[in-house]
């Protein structure tokens, strides 16, 4: 995967680049917002690791210009936890995920993996351990044995796979699964999730964790 690191602190930039190269990615690194903007215009990246505090134009501006061009590049924002936090959370500037400084390398790696997995989603079949998800045929196979999913279960699976590593609230799931004329109760969501869970968790490698009172988290064991 091709990744652009935008970070003006040389120490941090070297560290991030090193971690990403070790994970087998092709990494470009720039120090300023304008350089980042230029790089993003010239080449296509799967992921941008974007610091907000930059010497010329800030990370938000880079992000705004990127989204203005309707580029679908994944963006992982690095922030110091203050006023920036609110803007990342509150205003949807089009960042896909964010990390507050300082952060641990394992957390960084996990976020990068999750975001890159989204990029790979539309391509044919995805294998996680013994579970194979065929996105074209809309069916799953465990150890080669086909298992049928209902329409709702499939929609649920797609939703989880589109948001790996993120907790989804029941309200969100209900909103996503609801058709024009049907209102899904939160109890119904619980039923769908437990059915999907029964069908896929036997494969191992994938787990739908319950976040008590809130929703669910799709967890993928790293192969």
């Amino acid at each position: 995967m091709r990744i652009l690191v935008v970070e003006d602190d040389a120490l941090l930039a070297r560290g991030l680049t090193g971690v990403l190269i070790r994970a087998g990615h092709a990494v470009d690194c720039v120090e300023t917002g304008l350089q980042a903007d230029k790089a993003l215009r010239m080449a296509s990246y799967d992921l941008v690791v974007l610091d907000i505090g930059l010497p010329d134009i800030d990370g938000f501006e880079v992000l705004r210009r990127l989204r203005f061009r309707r580029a679908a590049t994944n963006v992982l924002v690095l922030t110091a936890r203050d006023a920036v936090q609110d803007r990342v959370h509150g205003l949807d500037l089009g960042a896909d995920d964010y990390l507050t400084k300082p952060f641990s390398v394992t957390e960084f790696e996990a976020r990068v993996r999750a975001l890159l997995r989204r990029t790979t989603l539309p391509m044919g079949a995805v294998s996680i351990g013994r579970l194979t998800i065929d996105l074209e045929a809309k069916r799953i196979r465990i150890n080669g044995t086909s298992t049928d999913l209902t329409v709702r279960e499939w929609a649920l699976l797609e939703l989880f796979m589109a948001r790996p590593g993120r907790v989804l609230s029941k309200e969100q799931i209900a909103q996503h699964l609801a058709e024009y004329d049907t209102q899904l109760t939160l109890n119904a969501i619980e039923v769908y999730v437990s059915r999907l869970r029964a069908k896929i968790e036997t494969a191992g490698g994938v787990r739908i964790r319950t976040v008590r009172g809130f929703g669910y988290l799709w967890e993928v064991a790293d192969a």
Partner: protein
Amino acid sequence: MPSHLSRRRSIRRRLLLYLIPALLLLVVSAAALTYFVALHVATYAYDRSLLDPALDIAANVTTDANGTRLTMQEQAQQALLFDHEDTVIFQVRSPAGAIVIGDEDLDGPPDVRPGERVFFDGRYRGEPVRIAAVRSDTGLYVQVAETLHKRNRLIWQILAAGLLPTLLIAFATLALAWTGVARGLAPLEWIRTQLLGRTADDLRPLDEHVTPVEIAPAIQALNRLFAQLRESNEMQKRFLANAAHQMRTPLAGLQLHLEVLLLRNLTPEVRAEISDIHLATVRAGHLANQLLALAKAEASSDDSGRLAIVDLYAVADRAVQEWVRRAIARDIDLGFVLEHASIAGDPILLSELLDNLLDNALRYTPSGGSVTVRCGCALGEPYMSIEDNGPGIPEAAHGKVFERFYRLPGTSGSGAGLGLAIVKEVVQRHRGTLRIESPGDCGTRIVVRFPPVVADTSTSPAATTSVLGAHAGASA
């Protein structure tokens, strides 16, 4: 402070101090002037009327062989000397000075030449009198004296008529000065109420146009001070923002490099040492975050403009992603019981509040434990609470845990003791209350209650749309 300012002074007293002597001088000089005018008027008028009997008598005195006589009817003489108020007497002396006719208790006249009229003050039986003296054609001295009753009465009348208005003006001036000071200072009272109604954060300029022009310079000076304070607040905020970036970025770099290093093949000794450095770096990063959060909560001045209607549900919702991951890493069951509840608040500080409560709960709850975040409205009061089934906080320490750098004795976590101090600061910013409840021997429940929003704008559909929802919508 200069010595002349060290004693508290009253404008009113000072004004009266200037006014009273000035008015006193005015009244006294007016009285003196009026008195002399009155004296002059009275003397001139009554002297002329005193001259008539003197001339009459002089014209009617005859001297022959029988001696000197007054050739005047008794009645005419009485009419001549009659007066309602004053005693009028006369005396005729020979050119040699011997008393010829009339009253004897009158001193001799000064030297008067024939045809001349002389007026002078004298005494008659111990009483002051005014005397008119003339000389007859025959060289006799004629004196007519009268007591001063009607003259004095006239003087007093003129004096009173002249002085009464002056006194009235003087008293009116004093009264006006007394009330005028109060009225003149009324704009200061307006300023006082304006300033009293403000919080320490409110540094908006006062409207100088509502005050009199005399006070405007003071208002301008105050406003200048406000502007300087605002600017220094702004500078402090900018400094904090810069400090945040400057401190955290190198710490992030340091931590990252140490972690990369730890992934390598290392001898156990080197690994142990680097692990220690790594732990210290993580703590330093955490501490930097907390110190800045605390400073920010304290310095969040003039945030009256930044206070917005915040849904506690949304605040909790925002914390879910990060804290669920941390809870999973620590094998703690993090649960939520969330209902919508709107308060007037600062969303950033409220996130800071919840982050620190969660950090604290996760830090001190053992693996396998559970932490539950709740928010909603109880008895009309918005609240947010966090409960865990950790070791709990002993009753005796309830007051202390919110102090800065206080740590429970015997706790082994890596915290610096700032988390709950930040919580306290944020709660105070929002005029809320903070309570620790320790149900039984085990577990802690920290409840933050907020004042209800005055204009009820709770649970609007827009407020319930979480950020996550927006994300999901965008990517769907």
